[in-house]
């Protein structure tokens, strides 16, 4: 972990004091995506009173934060980071989160649903649906209400899932944080309708037009540090119903007959460790990951146990106020 701490501090140095010229230009299509995202972020900073960045520590959040650091340079992003902590994130994620926020001097707000903790909600006993509903969706709603955010950046991409392909970049939420897919505001050119009434809010998705491959290529070309769990290493896992789960701490409930084995694994997405499947991989560098991406045959969300039930499930969750 000391490697990643040094990398993050070094990274933060890029945005303080003199700018660091790039050694080679960005690929043209990444440059276009970057400019589009920066434009979106500046619109939010200019038009909303209480914006926030929903920060989930994963690779998409890493890119989103990186773009924000660029968008407002030499100023710092004029909004805090909000993390919704379920209490079950990988330990490496929390270390990365706290080190990065501190190195950059950004305000990090962490929301945990204490009510859910008291009720003993956890991914093992409560099941993934209830756990996600209480510890993630409700916690997010609580954070939105507590801080009265009027705009919240999310790192969702349109290539992730079918219902996201139809969502606007500026996505209106009513006072109950619900999304109405049939009544979305038309979104033309680069002109965004930012008007809302008290209690309503807008989710803003600056990475809408990025694909998973774009994200990795950008991380590679712009040298953005990511949580080490994305890179292959020997880690303790159990295989359960065809999914490789990492035993990240001693709260992991082993079934009868299960013994953690050390395997060379990595993660394509990061969430709650008991709900996130790993893949066996030798990709220990960013170059290796991109190489693996180019030949990958399964989509990234398939590693998430919450999307599985049926293909309309994400739309349902979004209507209820999920990211």
């Amino acid at each position, binding site marked *: 972990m000391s490697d990643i701490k040094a990398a993050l501090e070094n990274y933060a140095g890029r945005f303080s004091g003199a700018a660091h010229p790039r050694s080679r230009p960005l690929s043209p299509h990444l440059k276009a995506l970057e400019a589009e995202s920066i434009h979106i972020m500046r619109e939010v900073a200019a038009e909303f009173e209480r914006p926030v960045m929903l920060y989930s520590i994963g690779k998409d959040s890493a890119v989103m934060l990186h773009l924000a650091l660029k968008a407002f340079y030499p100023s710092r992003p004029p909004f805090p980071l909000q993390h919704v902590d379920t209490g079950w994130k990988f330990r490496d994620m929390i270390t990365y989160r706290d080190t990065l926020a501190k190195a950059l001097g950004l305000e990090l707000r962490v929301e945990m649903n204490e009510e859910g903790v008291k009720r003993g909600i956890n991914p093992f006993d409560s099941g993934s649906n209830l756990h996600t509903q209480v510890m993630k969706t409700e916690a997010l709603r609580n954070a939105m209400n507590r801080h009265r955010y009027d705009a919240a950046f999310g790192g969702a991409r349109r290539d992730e899932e*079918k219902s996201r392909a139809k969502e606007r970049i500026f996505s209106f939420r009513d006072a109950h944080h619900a999304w109405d897919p049939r009544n979305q505001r038309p979104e033309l050119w680069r002109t965004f309708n930012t008007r809302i009434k008290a209690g309503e809010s807008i989710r803003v998705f600056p990475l809408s037009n990025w694909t998973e491959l774009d994200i990795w290529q950008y991380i590679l070309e712009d040298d953005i540090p990511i949580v080490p769990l994305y890179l292959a290493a020997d880690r303790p896992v159990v295989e359960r119903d065809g999914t490789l789960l990492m035993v990240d701490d001693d709260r992991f409930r082993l079934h009868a007959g299960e013994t953690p084995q050390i395997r060379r694994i990595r993660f394509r997405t990061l969430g709650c460790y008991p709900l996130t499947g790993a893949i066996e991989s030798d990709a220990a560098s960013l*170059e290796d990951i991109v190489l693996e991406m180019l030949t990958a045959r399964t989509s990234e969300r398939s590693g998430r146990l919450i999307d599985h039930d049926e293909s309309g499930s994400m739309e349902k969750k979004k209507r209820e106020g999920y990211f």
Partner: protein
Amino acid sequence: MAEGDARSAVLSRLTRAGDKGVLRFITCGSVDDGKSTLIGRLLYDSKLLFEDQIATLQRDSKKHGTTGENTMDFALLLDGLEAEREQGITIDVAYRFFNTEKRKFVVADTPGHEQYTRNMATGASTADLAIILVDARKGVLTQTRRHTYIANMMGIRHAVLAVNKMDVAEYSRSRFHEIVSDYLRVAETLGFDSITPIPISALHGDNIFAPSKAMSWHDGPTLLAHLESVETATEEVASRPFRMPVQWVNRPNLDFRGFSGAVTSGRIAAGDEIVAALSGKTANVARIVTADGDQPEAVAGDAVTIVLDRDIDVSRGDVLADPKARPEVSGQFAAELLWMAEEEMLPGRSYLLKAGGQATPASVTTLKHKLNVNTFEKEPGTSLKLNEIGVCTLAASRAVAFDPYADQRDTGSFILVDRFTNQTVAAGMIEFGLRRASNVHTHAMDVDKSRRSVMKGQKPGVLWFTGLSGAGKSTIANLVERKLAEAGRHTYSLDGDNVRHGLNRDLGFTDADRVENIRRIGEVARLFVDAGLIVTCSFISPFRAERQMVRDMLDDGSFIEVFVDAPLELCIQRDPKGLYKKAQAGEIKNFTGFDSPYETPEAPELHLRTGEMSADEAAEQVIEQLIRQGLIG
């Protein structure tokens, strides 16, 4: 191949020597022409579908599919919303992505039905190219013409006529040519830079990635080859005059003041002179700042922060521009409007106009003509309904900096937002400014409003009494005016009796006439305020938007909205003019509170419940309000 070679091959493929950036395109056409199938095919052939996505697709195809046994219904990949899958139609724009070694593609799959024209325009507004699909069996349809027109109107420069389902038209060359010549008769009048006809079968993949064996007679490119090679406007936009709308003023400390924005056209280098379009002030570029270091120059598409060599007045909404080729600055202009709301457009009603970072109240002054998008003919009209297009003149409360849309998409476009529902109600493409009008209002007169105000010993303003017929508006207004006169104040009162018979004699009671009625009253009230008077206005004025319009005409604090609130039953019981009786008998149509809605004020300065107090008590409350707001001492 050795492993190291494979890796360097992949990485060089990734950094793509031939990277031509991003091409954005839309697919459009009639309902069953196979748009979603085509995009599904593009994703499938570019090997971008993963095994689990294909498995889901195969499962969904069995459940909802319409393409028969053993074929994959690619449309199901795209129709992402549950309602769409059930109804088998596409109701909203879906954005999809694929890439080849040459380009990244962003595809907007847009709906075919006429009631979703606004969604199509949404997709088209950022697209470089339109694929217009035609079913080989059906040929050019009304929808084909409409979509072609909208694509062109939204500024798309390249059209592809994809004649689809050639497999069920026997791959007939003559049928293809027949459709192409039909189409060109329509489309050639519109001025696309290129129109490329390609015969395809999206279901079987003919002429999509690979040339079709069944149509060896086709001597043009495959669809993909064309998409990979077509030149986007990027180069051309970079050669136009410099524009950068200011989004955000970057001020980390007292030593740094920069203007952040995206260059929308042209290029700029350190040392170049710029003008801030709204203020007309010039300065030179000292630095072009980015997090990747200062840049010697920036071109269209770049997001940068510009530092100037001297302090000039620039804020969000202003446009930094080439001083030798400035944007127009005017409060009035002609524009093509696409109406996107259920509620129809009413001339005179106040909307919020958003253009880049600029936002100002604006209204449509006249609808010059509507456009029949099916025949491309001009038609007369007085208002625009959902999905209708018209050429209008607009008047904004503040001057706006802009370019004609035909020259500059980003600085030539705007949206209109309803000020109460906050819905985006229209997309506007500016044609030209009405310069003459912009010079009229600037004559400063020696005797002005404040001087007249001082002479009369009062602050002028408008007391706007709104409420149902019979609520007590005129009664209270009369009492208020009497009390003011007794105190030596200067007043005037406007109501239906002195306005409807003269100034507005020509107006009826349709929604459009009601809007115009209030607009004229507002203008007259404003003149009286200018003359130093306290004006009482008693009008049902049922629409929030019109009351807001009058509010916008006046300075802050000069418009006092008094909601005269009585229950409808009480008003019917009072019925001072016998109007409810007539309405009940069907002798009057569109009577407010009866068969026409009354929109209650959301935040009136004063709310009088006249069922619970006497008229005199109500009038006293109004006087107190005037004192509170400082109009009288």
